[in-house]
């Protein structure tokens, strides 16, 4: 066990799987010689060769469509989008081909698409988005959003093993900022099982990705005010751990749903609706959503700060719920 960054954990998990299973290969832009835009595959081409760490042309459609074909022929492709934002160029291949192939034609499509996502460093409208809600609406896909280094590795291994198309949203703001103990050996973290990031009694925060840490800071502030906050890290939004969320909602009776993606139609709406349907009688306050406003992600730091939910936004929301 060693302390590793979130980025190193992803890189280690991927390398371990490539060493273990020769069917696993990487296809993406600049993943070879350059080692990927964020250096997740740095040194991979030297170890695995140019036909397992394949530099693709600027062709997201050919990357995801190509991985789909290769998966149907028995390989285990891991595609890299340089930024999650560019997945829009491959929407058709995920949603039209890969997601529906098992249902209609009986042929599984075991692919992983790695998606460096999220904002916080002036990436602007096209290098900062969190598009997981769009894909969480598509039956046939899985959407994974790890928050910790250990989960990033274990969920990546699960994603590669999974016989379905899995979108792996790795938050860029966590890449080098978050460090924690990560087991050296191979292990899996099951997709669809939430993690209790922090136990509490008074209010539940349901969140995932980088917002887990925003919630954690807010929870610490609330400790001083004698409000005990529980944080449920969903780890994946498709499938999502409804049972864990409902259990926590019933325990604290007050729920705040927090995400970095925009509010309207965001995945938080699904969570809030489910709690309202299934745990209404257990609630002592209306469910509260905190999310980005309905705008594209802005560039300038002052605007971006106003866009991404901040610790102060979450503490205000928690106080409101605590006092209700």
């Amino acid at each position, binding site marked *: 066990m060693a302390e590793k960054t979130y980025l190193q954990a992803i890189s280690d998990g991927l390398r371990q799987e490539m060493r273990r299973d020769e069917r696993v*290969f990487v*296809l993406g832009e600049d993943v070879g010689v350059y080692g990927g835009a964020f250096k997740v595959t740095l040194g991979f081409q030297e170890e695995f060769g140019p*036909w*397992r760490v*394949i530099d*693709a*042309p600027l*062709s997201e*459609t*050919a990357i*995801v*469509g*190509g*991985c*789909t*074909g*290769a*998966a*149907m*022929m*028995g*390989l285990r*492709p891991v595609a890299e989008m340089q930024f999650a934002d560019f997945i829009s160029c491959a929407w*058709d*291949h995920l949603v*039209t*081909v890969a997601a*529906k*192939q*098992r*249902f*209609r*034609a*009986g*042929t*599984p*499509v*075991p692919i992983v698409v790695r998606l460096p996502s999220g904002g916080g460093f002036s990436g602007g409208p096209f290098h900062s988005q969190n598009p997981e809600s769009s894909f969480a609406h598509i*039956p*046939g896909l*899985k959407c994974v959003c790890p928050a910790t280094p250990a989960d990033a590795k274990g969920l990546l291994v699960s994603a590669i*093993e999974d*016989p*379905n198309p899995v979108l792996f949203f790795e938050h860029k703001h966590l890449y080098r900022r978050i460090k924690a103990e990560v087991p050296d050996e191979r292990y899996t973290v099951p997709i669809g099982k939430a993690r209790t990031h922090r136990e509490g009694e008074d209010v539940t925060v349901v969140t995932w990705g980088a917002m887990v840490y925003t919630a954690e800071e807010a929870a610490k502030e609330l400790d001083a005010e004698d409000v005990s906050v529980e944080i449920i890290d969903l780890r994946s939004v498709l499938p999502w751990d409804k049972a864990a969320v409902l259990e926590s909602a019933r325990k604290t009776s007050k729920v705040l749903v927090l995400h970095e993606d925009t509010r309207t139609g965001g995945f938080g709406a699904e969570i809030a609706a489910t709690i309202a349907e299934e745990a209404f009688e257990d609630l002592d306050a209306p469910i509260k959503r905190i999310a980005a406003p309905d705008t594209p992600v802005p560039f300038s730091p002052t605007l971006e700060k106003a866009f991404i939910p901040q610790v102060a936004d979450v503490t205000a929301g928690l106080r409101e719920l605590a006092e209700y």
Partner: protein
Amino acid sequence: MAVREAEPVGSLREVREAGLDREDLLGIYRNLLITRGIEERGHILYRQGKIPGSFYTGRGNEAAAVGVATAMGSDDVGAPLQRDMGVHVTRGVEPWRIFAQYMGRVDGPTRGRDGNVHMADHRFGLLAMVSHLPAMLPVAVGCALAFRIRGDKRVALGWFGEGSAARGDAHEAMNFAGVRRLPVVFICDNNQWAYSTPTHLGYAVEHLADRAAAYGFDGVVVDGTDALAVYREAKRAIEQARAGGGPTLIECQTLRMEGHAVHDDAFYVPKEMFEEWAKRDPLERFRTWLRENAEFDDDEEDELTAGVKKLLNEAIRRAEESPLPDPSTLLEGVYATPEDLETPHHK
């Protein structure tokens, strides 16, 4: 690297040189008859209200589809489209399962989950098309990439129409395949009409195969009503790909002899065009060739057509016995299980 226009096929000797014996030739004719027969019978079933949704045929494209599929090796794979029934037939998909597919029954290749020609039996190396043409081209390129990575001597075939050639998928697929010299053959069914859109509103080069040069590989234009010429060109391209020589783009020129689908009377296609191409009917053309070059006589022909008729009658009967899917099974199969990966392809 100018585009090459393929010569028509002449004598039986020439055909033998291309690797076909007399039995193969009769097999091609039989597959052509079955292909047209399935679509003609399907049309009747549609009018009888037995086929839900819409109904598409590939009338005029039978020789192009059968010719290419005949050239494929048994381990090769392909993603044929809605004008390529002949590929399914030639690869061995049983006609009764195709009728079951048309009628949304559980024994169709998609078990009623998808309709018309949106089907494939992966046991025969076929991949099920989607409506978003030419989305299967990047998928075929991905199959070829897998073959290249593993060093398999297999080839992938991707079909597209001249209409869908306008979409970006075609460019990305061909560009990537050209860059990596992957074992893939691109087959363009150029039937001259993308729904109601004529070719001059779809592309600005003389031949679609001209585009191959831009991707660094060969382009060939072939008369898609000539089953043997299509076979010869497909065989050459497939074996070149298998040997590591990279992709080829084959443009099969035909005319879509019916509307886009059964609801469309194709009023926008000039009558003279239909009359002209009717003279080049691919089945009649091949039948005449067999009679002139391969001693195909009345007795043999009668026996063959009677056999096909019996096959189709039996197929429809069996398909109609296949049940409609049980609504309680709706939720099944959205997600794959690890056991689903235990197929020949996924190993």
